[in-house]
Every structure is written in structure tokens, then in C-alpha cells.
């Protein structure tokens, strides 16, 4: 591989990401399955690095999952998004940052469609006025939360407690990056690094000491497929696609997978569990899986946040081997505690996949 070739492409797809003043909209999947990631997005960008990020309690889902499961018409999806724009406008913000990749793709697609078909924008404005008596200005800039963290990666590196290197050997960690499909596949110029060699995650990983692996199925979808997962009868599709990715990355012996999409870390994590149950196969070392982290979890670890405060215990694949490699201390006894250090029951263990 010729690294400079990639750098050349990265240079072509740099976005001018505004530095400050963001209206934040949350992700349905992440709130359910990676609640601490959103917490630490704000804790890092807002509290630690001092950026102004505002959240309205009145914002809702963007309905993107329903849109891509085809259960609502396009105009419904657009008007729900228009309402979020109205909340942003009312709060006095012009830059919108989304926690979810499907939302990011959805917002971007909507703005692009309106640009091409202004009559549709007019219609949606009318719908929103009739339904909610709200008006909106379109955002000046729409970013995904990973864009912002990519922009702040240097500031995070300056404050790093840990490097993404093997403590024992000093070698950089081997990192697989997995980019959500709706980040840049529809609009390559909206993603840092474009669609073929996005650098939004690899940029973070490299700034914090890791080395990114380029494997043949790098660009393949995790297999979520919206209706292909939500309907139980279809989940073979989802599983098969993830399996294909793991078979492709396995020879590279990755230490960790990082993701910027809400669904991908859930699927890349849980399907490892399912494959181990179905076929007895595990992809990590010594019977463990390959840990799958969100970019906030990765940033949190680098910044020295306690792994259990970051929510790494709600992953099915054990993260302890990764923490040990980096040399991040953790207290096993605190892993499954409830609020205020309260002792609660602990989760059951899989049959085949090694966990703690």
C-alpha cells in the first residue's frame, strides 16, 4: 500500500468544519445501546474542550429508521427533520451536529433534494406550519459528531493519558475502522476523506497512536439493512454481511474495531456473539472477540476516562484484553455495578465467546 496516495485523496476531501456553536441532535440507537457515548461526546467537546453545544429537550427522532424501513412517506420524514431545523433556528444556532449517521445522511439528502427541487422545500415548509406553526432556517452547516471529534483530535491528543499502542511492545494497535454507509456513500464530498478512503476515523486513530488496517471488505456495509434487521425473519442477511467482514479482517489480527455509526458497533459486536454461538468461531485472540468501540469510547479511553464510566460493560465482546494491551487500569469489581456503586445482578455468560 502506498500511504501517500491516500493522503492525496484525503487532501481533496477536507471539510471546513466550523469550530464552535452547535445544535446537537441525538441518535435513537446510540441512546439505547451506547448511552455513555453521547454523554462523553458532550463531556469531551463541551465540558473539556469548551465548545458551545446546545441540546433542546424538545427534539425527537429524525424518523430516519422508519424512512429507510419505508414505513413513512418521504414528506413525513422531511417534515420531522424540518421541525428539528425549526428548533435549531429558535435556539439561535446555524450549525447542526448529528449523533447518528442515518440522521446525517438523511439531513444531507433532504437539503440536497430541496436544492434540486425547491418546490418540495416550499411544500414541507407549508406542512410544518400547518402541523406545528413553526418556521425554520436551513442549517448553514451539517456535521456528523465524528466530524467534530475528528476536528478536535489534536486537542484530544494533547490531553491524552494513553496512546493506542501495545504497552508491552510499543507497537501501534492494529485498528479496523468501520464507517457508516450513510456517512459519505451517497454524497462523497460531505464526508472527511470521501467515500472510498474516509479519514474521519483513521485520522483520530492515527493521531492517538494507532495504525489503521486496510482489508478487502473495509468498505462493505455492516449488514444492518434497516428492515433486514428489524424483522426477525430477515436477520440472516444482516448476520451474513457482518460475517463476511470478519472473515476478511481476521488475517490482519485487529486489536480493536472503531465505528462512527450507531448501528454498526452494535451489530459488529453482537454478531460476533451470534457467530460464536452458532458456529463456535471467535475472531479475537484466545477465544475472545474483537472489541468494537464508538469513537467517543476510544477518545474517552485515550483521555483516561474509567472504562466502566464509558459504558464498555454494555458491549457483549469483552474489552479487557484491549485495556490490558494498552495498559489502562480497571476495577473488575466495578464493571457491573448500578447507580452509586450499588451492587446489582451480573449478566449471564455466552456459551462460546469468552467474557468476564
Amino acid at each position: 500500500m502506498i500511504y501517500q496516495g491516500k493522503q492525496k485523496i484525503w487532501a481533496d476531501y477536507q471539510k471546513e468544519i466550523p469550530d464552535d456553536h452547535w445544535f446537537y441532535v441525538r441518535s435513537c440507537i446510540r441512546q439505547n445501546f451506547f448511552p455513555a457515548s453521547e454523554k462523553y461526546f458532550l463531556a469531551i467537546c463541551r465540558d473539556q474542550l469548551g465548545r458551545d453545544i446546545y441540546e433542546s429537550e424538545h427534539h425527537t427522532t429524525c424518523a430516519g429508521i422508519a424512512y429507510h424501513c419505508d414505513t413513512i412517506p418521504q414528506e413525513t420524514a422531511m417534515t420531522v427533520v424540518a421541525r428539528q431545523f425549526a428548533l435549531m433556528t429558535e435556539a439561535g444556532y446555524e450549525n447542526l451536529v448529528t449523533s447518528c449517521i442515518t440522521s446525517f445522511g438523511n439531513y444531507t439528502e433532504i437539503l440536497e433534494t430541496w436544492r434540486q427541487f425547491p418546490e418540495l422545500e416550499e411544500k414541507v415548509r407549508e406542512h410544518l406550519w400547518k402541523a406545528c406553526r413553526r418556521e425554520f432556517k436551513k442549517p448553514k452547516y451539517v456535521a456528523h459528531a465524528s466530524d467534530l471529534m475528528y476536528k478536535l483530535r489534536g486537542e484530544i491528543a494533547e490531553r491524552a493519558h494513553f496512546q493506542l499502542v501495545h504497552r508491552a511492545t510499543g507497537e501501534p494497535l492494529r485498528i479496523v475502522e468501520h464507517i457508516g454507509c450513510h456517512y459519505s456513500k451517497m454524497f462523497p464530498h460531505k464526508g472527511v476523506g470521501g467515500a472510498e478512503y474516509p479519514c474521519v476515523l483513521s485520522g483520530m486513530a492515527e493521531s492517538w497512536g494507532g495504525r489503521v488496517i486496510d482489508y478487502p471488505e473495509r468498505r462493505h456495509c455492516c449488514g444492518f439493512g434497516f428492515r433486514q434487521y428489524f424483522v426477525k425473519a430477515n436477520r440472516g442477511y444482516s448476520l451474513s454481511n457482518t460475517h463476511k467482514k470478519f472473515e476478511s479482517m481476521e488475517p490482519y489480527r485487529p486489536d480493536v474495531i472503531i465505528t462512527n455509526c450507531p448501528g454498526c458497533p452494535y451489530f459488529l459486536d453482537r454478531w460476533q456473539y451470534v457467530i460464536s454461538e452458532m458456529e463456535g468461531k471467535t475472531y479475537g485472540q484466545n477465544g475472545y472477540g474483537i472489541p468494537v468501540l464508538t469513537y467517543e469510547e476510544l477518545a474517552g479511553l485515550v483521555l483516561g476516562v474509567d472504562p466502566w464510566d464509558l459504558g464498555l460493560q454494555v458491549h457483549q465482546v469483552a474489552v479487557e484484553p484491549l485495556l490490558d494491551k494498552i495498559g489502562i487500569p480497571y476495577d473488575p469489581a466495578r464493571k457491573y455495578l448500578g447507580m452509586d456503586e450499588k451492587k446489582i445482578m451480573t449478566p449471564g455468560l455466552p456459551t462460546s465467546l469468552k467474557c468476564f
Partner: protein
Amino acid sequence: MGRYFDELSKDYRFKEGLKTCINCGTCTAICPAAEFYKYDPRKVVDTVQRKDDGEIEALLKSETIWYCGECMSCVTRCPRGNGPGLVIMALRNLSARLGYFTASEKGRQLWPLTKTLNNNILHTGYCIHPSTFDCDEYPESGPVTRWVMDNKEEVYGRLGANYEGKGPGVLRHIPQQDLDELQAIFDETGGTERMEAVERASREKAAELGMDFEEYTKYTYEHCSVGHFNDE
């Protein structure tokens, strides 16, 4: 000739998704669905661009159009700037509108999807919410998810969520006034009408199959006949 094509042409996703297809197969080569289902997005787009009413009607009633995962990987690569995934969205939309979706097993899944997702959106403000997440329906979510769901207040609380709480934050309670606005949007933009149409057609189909509606809902959600995957 071209009646369905004209109907599709009113859909903005179709306007963006279909210019002219040259059958090069770039889309199919990397399509996650083409790899595992009996599915070829190139053929779907080619069928549509031929404008034959009979063929398009067959598509609208087929299993085929429901195999796509809407990952949109095809959009990146098409040398003619088409978006097979967008064409699929327009086809599904028309199939739902005309009630043709009940003609296929995969199409019938539109009902359990509509029921779950749209109810979540209108009642909680989220597409997915712990209060309606049933671990038994998602066995792959694993023991750790069961642990979270069995201890929602404790685990979400410990991880800094504002679970069912007031004000902003992770999994906060979304105020009723906002849910009312979502309902108003659904009513105004055809979302409610679509839900009703999908339910009506599904109830008819359930009756035709001699199933009670609960049973039909569960069956369409869980049942996968042999023949969808490429090796079957």
C-alpha cells in the same frame, strides 16, 4: 404503457435515482443484498427503465424489491449517477400505496415494521426505546442487553443517561407537546394515511389467509420461507 412509470416519476427519489442505466453491474458487484439474496439491483433498474406496466406491476408485487438494505453503496459507484437504492425506495413507496406489498412474504413485513416503528415514534419520540424493547424478539442482543433491560434504571442511570427524566439528555422523556407535534406532522404529510392504508391491506390479507391479526403480525415478523437466499 408507462402508467406505473409515470406514477414512480412523481417520487423525488425516483427523479434522482434513475437517469439511464447501461446494465454495467457496478451496483450489483458490491450490493450486500445481491450477495446473499436472489437479488440483482441492475435488473430491477433495467426492468423499471423499460416502462412495461406488466413487468413493473410484477416487481411491485414481488419479493425482489424488499431485499435491498438501503445502505446506498450503489449510489457511490454508478457511472451514470443513478441510485438503484433510491429507485427501490420509490418502488416500495408505490407498492405500499397501492396495497401490492401484501402479495409477497417480504412485502407483508411492512406491517410489523410500521406497527413497531411508527408507534415508537408517535408514543415515545424515538424509533427504538427500551420500554418497548423485548429481548426475546432480539435473541442476538445477547445476555448483556438482557442485563441492561432488566436493570434499566440502574444501568442507564449509572451511564449518565437521563432515563425517562425531564429536560435534555440521553433517553430523556420527550414531552407530550412534542409527541403531539409529531402526530400532527404524520396527519398533515400522509404518514397517518399510509399507516392506515398498510394496516387495512394487511388486515385484508390476514383474513384472506385465515389468520387472526395478532397471529398474522407475528407470523410475518418471524417467518422466512425457503427460497429467498441464493443457495435455496
